């Protein structure tokens, strides 16, 4: 299969942000795919398969991250990661942005 590049922007929506356990889930999910996976917060780009790198992004709730996958299964990788971050919310409670909570 030919290498393809897929990219998507995701928002951290679980209340406690991308702390240790979510970082682990992210890395575990990313590692299921052969594609190379990079994650950027606009300032730094890190290896999505390294827990050290992911944890050091220290992305709090509300942070937007760009995930780029490059490889034969890039599309599937992006979908799985987007699902983990935005739909499953790392199996945590959702984040309540302050202005929304005030409504």
């Amino acid at each position, binding site marked *: 299969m030919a290498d393809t590049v897929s990219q998507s922007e995701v928002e951290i929506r679980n209340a406690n942000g991308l702390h240790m356990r979510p970082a682990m889930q992210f890395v575990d999910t990313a590692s299921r795919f052969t594609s190379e996976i990079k994650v950027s917060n606009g300032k730094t780009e890190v290896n999505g398969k*390294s827990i*050290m790198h992911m944890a050091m992004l220290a992305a709090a709730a509300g942070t937007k991250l760009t995930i780029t996958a490059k490889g034969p299964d890039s599309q599937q990788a992006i979908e799985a990661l987007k699902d983990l971050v935005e739909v499953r919310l790392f199996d945590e409670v959702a984040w309540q942005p302050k202005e929304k909570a005030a409504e």
Partner: protein
Amino acid sequence: MKSPGSRKRKLPSEYLKMEIKKGIAVSPGIAIARSLVIDSEDYRIPKRSVLPSAKISEVKRVRDAFKKAVKELEKFSSGEEIAEGNIKDIFAVHQRFLKDKNLRKKITDLVYNELLTAEYAVSITLRDIANHFASVQDKYISERAADIYDIEKRLLRHLVGGKRDDAEHINREVVIVAHELSPTQTASFDRKFIKGLATDAGGRTSHTAIVARSLGIPAVVGLEDVTGNIAPTATVIVDGNRGVVIIDPDEPTLKEYRQHAIEFERLERELDTLRDMDAVTRDGVAIELYGNIEFPYEAEMVLDKGGQGIGLYRTEFLYLYSQTEPTEEDHYKAYSEVIRIFGNRPIIIRTMDLGADKFTQSKRFTQERNPFLGLRSIRFCLQNLVLFKTQLRAILRASVDGDVRIMFPLISSLHEVRQAKMILHDVMEDLDEDGIKYNPNMPVGIMIETPSAALTASILAGESDFFSIGTNDLIQYTLAVDRGNERVSTLYSGADPAVVNLLRSVIHDANKAKISASICGEMASEPEYIMLLLGLGFRIFSLAPPMIPEIKKLVRSVTVESCNIIARKALSMNSEREIVNYIRSAAMKVLPEVF
């Protein structure tokens, strides 16, 4: 610090840069040997380099530590005893970190390219990451720095632990260089090969100092950063007389020190001739000199040096040596060994004094915020009766074999003495029931080492057959100074007017109650204090065995009359400085060669 390159070029030794470090001399003698540096996972790891030729094996040490740490965590997370949920997640996260090639490479690169030790590379890398987390605004994320410290500790435990095993199995003569040595560490050293000790931390009464003196090996502590200044297996001179440590000495210095070492031994031999002479002052007052011991084998040394008995038999080693709690037989055997050597001479056994800075290997003690004011010593025993009674039973059984006396440590109230004695009587009744013999009149004494005990000595005397003053703790509690903390240890002094006044009041109360009061703390081994103590009225001293001849020589050179004058004068002084200078110069006039 020397660059690794300069060693590789094998410069003639006189061009090697010699480094002289000043610390506190805590145990006399001169040692010249190669260094063995021991890091501790509990302290900041100092920056140290490895030789270029060692970088491959150093990288392997990093890899091995990672492998061992991963294995350890696998055991945890597969084990059923581990709680579900959170804890399991935490271990899983740590495992991911330890398997992260990016992390490992960062560390091995530091070792390989910068020639740093595995310990330092691990520490600096993980601390960088932890600092990064700690600086994050989000509180939930910033608290994750603790996880990183945990991973650091786990890796260091494998790295340092391996080295520590080396220290237990050394087969060449070394000088141990460390930040500070724990009782557990020193208990496992093979004393045949340890020629000297040099540590960053500690003061005159730190554990390292006490152990060094009792083993009779030279030691210098409070060197602040000696561990950071030393290459592995550098040649080191420890001058325990002047408190100097010399790293990579040049040829003339080495020669000079070899001469010093010979001279020192000659002086030691001369003091040994005092062994069979009485400890009596020039005006005919008999003084009793006993030895402090920790291990049974030290009893021989007390006899050798002319000690009249054991004034303090510390029993903590029984708890520190083995993984399991000592049995009654373990206790009994240890006591019998000393009785066999001492026959009918007095042996004062102090009951278990653990807690605070000393803890057992099974980590029975939970962390306390303020361990020196916490559940230690007699307080711990009174709450752990099974452990306490095991020891009391063994002491009572041994009491029929010799002149055994028992002493309770860290007494701070009358209630505690009564409680301890009540338990002792319970054990006596048990022995009666079992038909086992013991001495029902075994003297029961207490240590006076808290200000509260010193101030209520007249009350406590009613329940005690003798007092023994533990000056180390008494000074520490009176002046509120941690003797092991090098940043405040200069405030720690037996010559403080507060301490001198307490000592006077205790001996006064003891004399009035017609019971004996001895000094068994470090003060009794320090020549400068002896005249003051004699003048205050003390007649019994128990000290580190190697110091007995020196103190005896001093005793034989003074008169009680002159000591009385010194004590009276010291009691009228207002400051520690004034008293120290005064008693030091007084002692120096009597026996200049001791100083």
